């Protein structure tokens, strides 16, 4: 199996999962697609140096590229209109809209930390490492992000729990 075959197989298998993470990180379908495409392009350039499972490597590119874009362009954090959102099933629509809107109103750092901690299941240390910030900052940012979600959308309090 050649490197190209490996890469193609990886893209086929992991693009849906990478897309989900990218969508949560960016909150926007188009940006998420660009983010995944860029991460895979960069991974392909360095494919010969990746030993073992490429997934951690590609995911790390995904996280840092998102932060890098934000730093470069200070992307607007308001969500795009509903026409950019794909159709959803009917169940729990109200709750998802609320959580999605609330996520969009967090700062990039807060949203990124939240996604890495609670969706990607990274530990505080791993999250700090991935984003180049201290563990203490991860802790405080997580707390701030959850606090802000509670303030923004009180009905989410049950979902994310009360402050400890």
């Amino acid at each position: 199996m050649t490197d190209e075959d490996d890469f193609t197989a990886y893209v086929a298998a992991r693009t849906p999962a990478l897309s989900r993470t990218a969508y949560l990180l960016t909150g926007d379908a188009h940006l998420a697609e660009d983010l995944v495409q860029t991460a895979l392009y960069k991974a392909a350039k360095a494919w010969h140096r990746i030993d073992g499972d490429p997934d951690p490597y590609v995911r790390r590119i995904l996280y840092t590229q998102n932060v890098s874009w934000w730093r470069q362009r200070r992307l607007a954090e308001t969500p795009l209109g509903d026409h950019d959102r794909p159709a959803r099933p009917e169940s729990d629509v109200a709750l998802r809209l609320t959580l999605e809107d609330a996520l969009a109103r967090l700062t990039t750092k807060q949203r990124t930390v939240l996604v890495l901690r609670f969706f990607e299941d990274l530990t505080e240390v791993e999250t700090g490492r991935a984003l180049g910030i201290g563990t203490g900052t991860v802790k405080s940012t997580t707390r701030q992000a959850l606090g802000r979600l509670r303030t923004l959308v009180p009905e989410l309090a049950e979902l994310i729990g009360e402050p400890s």
Partner: protein
Amino acid sequence: MTTERLRDELSRVAEAGPTARIAPDTWRRARRARTRDRVVGVAAVIAVVVLVGGLAVTGLPHRAGTPVASGDGLAVPDRLYAVPDRMAARRDDDSWARSEVTNDLTIGRGAAAWVMPEGLPVVVDAAEGAYHLLDLPGFSGNDRLTTLAQQPGLALSPDGRRLAYGYGDPGPQDDDRPVPSGVRVIDLESGDVRTIPVTGGEGTVVGRLRFSPDGRWLVWVGRRLASWTEGSIGGGTSVAGRIAPGATTSEAMTGLGKGVEADMAGDVGIDDRGVVQVLTNRSLVAWDGRVLSRRRLAEELLGPIAVRLDGSALAVSGSDGTALRRLDPATGRITEVVNDGPYLDPVGWLEDDDTTLVVVKGGEFTTPTALAIAGPDGVQTVARLEDGLPTPSIAVDLVSAEQPTVRRPAPDWPWSDTARTAAAVAAVVAAVVAALAALLALRWARRRQPRSPR
């Protein structure tokens, strides 16, 4: 907190996002780009050879002399520069590619040390402020995969004489056995290496290391892995240990309580008697082979912990990171030192003083921006940290209120490929322009010559 439900809801939101359409030519474009990079690199080398040859003929102008340190003796520089990432280039086998990376560890006392995001350790010496890129034996940052699982641990002793780091670099032979790993301590004056193995699991990646104020004791926090080979890493639990002065064994820190052992993300500190303080959530646990005390704190505090020289106080951050607190380990009493301003990470206490050296952090991602002395009289910046520099470990004993830092020459890194290419192109363009100008001048001069009458 019902994080399971939050995770479920995040998953549902994520499911609503469309799957990215990846361009089918991604692989080919990436490989072409890589080939292009290589061609540009080779072209740059050729251009540089031509340029250097040309300059050797015409004579090189002398560069302005590097600035001279205004302070004498051993000291911390008043500015620390990020090392260009090209200096951490690796070969295909992950070894460091640049000739500037050395395994000569006898560099004299260090002033500052850090690990580049690429995993390469850097030590700035205290005598001249020179930057040393070190190929440390078995350093866990040498393995790219390991750095993904755990930030490689590295710490400079307060007097700058010793450098401690986590080792554990899996090879092909480690597929069937635990990876030999633990802590190594280098004497930067003699180059001697002390190895302190840590056993258990498939190996332990040591993440954080803290020296006692006198630099004799060490405490570390790491991750004992359930799987660790050359091609895989994962699982495991948080572990911590204490290393006595001169010891070649580590004492496992057990009996801290399930909650504390599961969450070592707070921080640890150790005093000159070897008593370890563990800060996690709202508790402070004192440990000396067994738990001495367990105190519930009035507010949540964050590490890093800086232990006062006499062990009578700890410097820590407030929970929002924007305040500096003084914590009495004997009583759990908390006193505000600085209550506003940027994020402050305590580094260490100054000798015979009630002030602490802190790393000032700023920006959205709270990156290090400066070193400062913080105390009841406020925060005084004493050194600038260049953008992109990770949080450094500092030889605090070399910092005093009278002479906090000194001016040192900026590091002189070799040109990047881009700069070389630009210089080569500029030289070629300049040569062509000069030749054209000479040609035009010659023709103009010939036309100006009076023609002889026929």
